[in-house]
């Protein structure tokens, strides 16, 4: 399966937007993990802005970072959202409420608890009626999202925006599902080469046996293994540099996704 990368978005600890993150990923600027500060984007109506939690802010800002360097119309652009746990904080708060004597679940918390909440807010913010899906594939959610987005591109002949995001649960969930850092990665993919596309991506699934590509920097490697969206970092590193690269992402228990990245 072959797709073309038109734009990238990236937000994480010490990774504030794709333009500033590129020199960090290729090793020109040292990586320093600073806490990511997130605000609700202005494209959301004020009333919705107040209702959004951190996952929505993360997913939307990551997608907007990719759109900032794209000429694509956001209101007709299809989207694929992928995350292992979506809003773990809201989930935790609801479970606490349900374990208490007063089971007054907040209606806003309830509608924010659905896995596709960021996709809903995205469509409201960008007035987009375009197709959108929201996926979960545990630690392999980024690879699964890339396959879904790639298949969409190839079979529908249309561009698509992939937004992957993951952030930590509060305790006690953190102890049973530790996630490191707050990280979002977005790729704007097109079915054919355009004036905006800067890399060609050949994607295939293979049976296991090959180790996933690592990050050399220990801080970035910690993010790669600690956050499901971090599994995208080797691909983002390849996209940040000038060279053709082949790399491997973990996918399910016994498979891998092999990616050939060719600048174009």
């Amino acid at each position, binding site marked *: 399966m072959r797709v073309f990368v038109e734009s990238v978005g990236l937000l994480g600890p010490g990774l504030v937007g794709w333009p500033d993150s590129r020199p960090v990923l290729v090793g020109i600027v040292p990586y320093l993990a600073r806490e990511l500060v997130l605000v609700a984007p202005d494209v959301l109506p004020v009333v919705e802005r107040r209702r959004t939690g951190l996952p929505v802010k993360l997913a939307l800002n990551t997608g907007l970072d990719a759109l900032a360097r794209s000429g694509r119309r956001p209101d007709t652009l299809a989207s694929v959202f992928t995350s292992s746990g979506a809003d773990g904080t809201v989930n935790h708060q609801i479970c606490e409420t349900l*374990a208490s004597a007063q089971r007054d679940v907040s209606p806003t918390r309830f509608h924010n608890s659905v896995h596709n909440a960021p*996709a809903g807010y995205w469509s409201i913010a960008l007035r987009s009626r375009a197709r959108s899906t929201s996926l979960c594939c545990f630690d392999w959610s980024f690879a699964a999202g890339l396959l879904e987005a790639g298949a969409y591109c190839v079979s529908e002949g249309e561009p698509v925006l992939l937004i992957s995001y993951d952030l930590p649960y509060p305790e006690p969930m953190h102890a049973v599902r530790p996630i490191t850092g707050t990280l979002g990665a977005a790729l704007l993919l097109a079915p054919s080469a355009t004036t905006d596309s800067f890399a060609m991506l050949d994607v295939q699934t293979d049976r296991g046996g090959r180790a996933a590509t690592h990050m050399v920097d220990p801080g970035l490697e910690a993010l790669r293994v600690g956050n499901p969206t971090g599994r995208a970092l080797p691909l983002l590193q390849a996209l940040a540099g000038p060279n053709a690269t082949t790399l491997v992402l973990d996918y399910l228990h016994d498979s891998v996704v092999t990616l050939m990245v060719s600048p174009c």
Partner: protein
Amino acid sequence: MKPLTLSAFTLTSSLGVGLRAHLDALRAGHSGLTRCAFESAQIDTWIGQVPDERLAPVTGTGAGSDCRNNRLAQLALAQDGFQGAVARARERYAAQRIGVFIGTSTSGLLHTELAYRHRDVRTGALPEGFNYAETHNCFSLGRFVQAQLGLNGPAVVVSTACSSSAKVFGSAARMIAAGLCDAAVVGGTDSLCLTTLYGFASLELLSKTPCRPFDSERNGISIGEGAGFALLELARPQEPRGTVQLLGVGESSDAHHMSAPHPEGAGARAAMQQALSSAGMTACDVDYVNLHGTATRSNDAAEDKAVYDLFGTNPACSSTKGATGHLLGASGIAEAVICALALREQFMPGSPHTQLLDPNLRVRYLLNTGAQAPRRVMSNSFGFGGSNCVLLFGLAH
């Protein structure tokens, strides 16, 4: 799109276990709804519950995934020769060439809700042995289905609230078209939990009576649970008579509100239109529409407008949620299977509990099950976040 054959399919809900039970109940106009006595819920509402005694624990190597949601999936997978059909497909295509695309909204969340009642008093920790990956995480269902069926091709869980297990048909069709797999198991499972019961109660969307889609007195939903699955393969030129095929898929976003539908049903209409065009068909080709029909005031009004604007009174329409309840993340597959049954067994399902049709709604609504044989049927699924998905099914020529 290229038509896909439903080589096998199955459904378990409060209406019964397996296809035979559903066919009999739908023909007779029965409902599976009962007054809510689920777990410790103190809510005056009706639900579509699969009896606890039917939900055997998951044992053996999969014991770590034991929770209500996976028990329900396990029960459904064991019906209608589904596992045998997948085993035969595995021989034809190889296990790594069959994808698994499954929908759920809450996965094994009930398991976590119960664990929160047993946290360590001192540390707040969850009980020893709590298995997040195999019960709580949405993908636990995808992993469970893959393991049960011995498949190791591409797999993912779609979680877009009440459109989840309709959208899996779109994902499967695209993955097959892109060559990432040759066949696919699609489906979904959602099980009763306190988050959805108390959550919908907080939105004042639960009916105190069995839900009455399109009734002038309708006043909310009845939550249900269930699991359904289908095996999809590229259609061959000579399919046996009565073979059901997926002909079209339409997907759209409302871009309106997180928990209320667009009042004019604009997103719903766009999805229906797209399903028709992906099948190369027009509105007059559809004989029956299985409505999303949740029985809230706003859903039914918006959906009626969208369907009427596109189809007029040509197709017969009904919602089967008075029979099964609203299966949330499993409603897409449940109603897809009901549509497949309607095509294969030549009937159109009616709408138990709906008595007096709302005179302000204009679609041609079927109160009682009819013996008309549909050739092409549409199934609507709309969810929170304004996520819409429409499936179009027909009989092979």
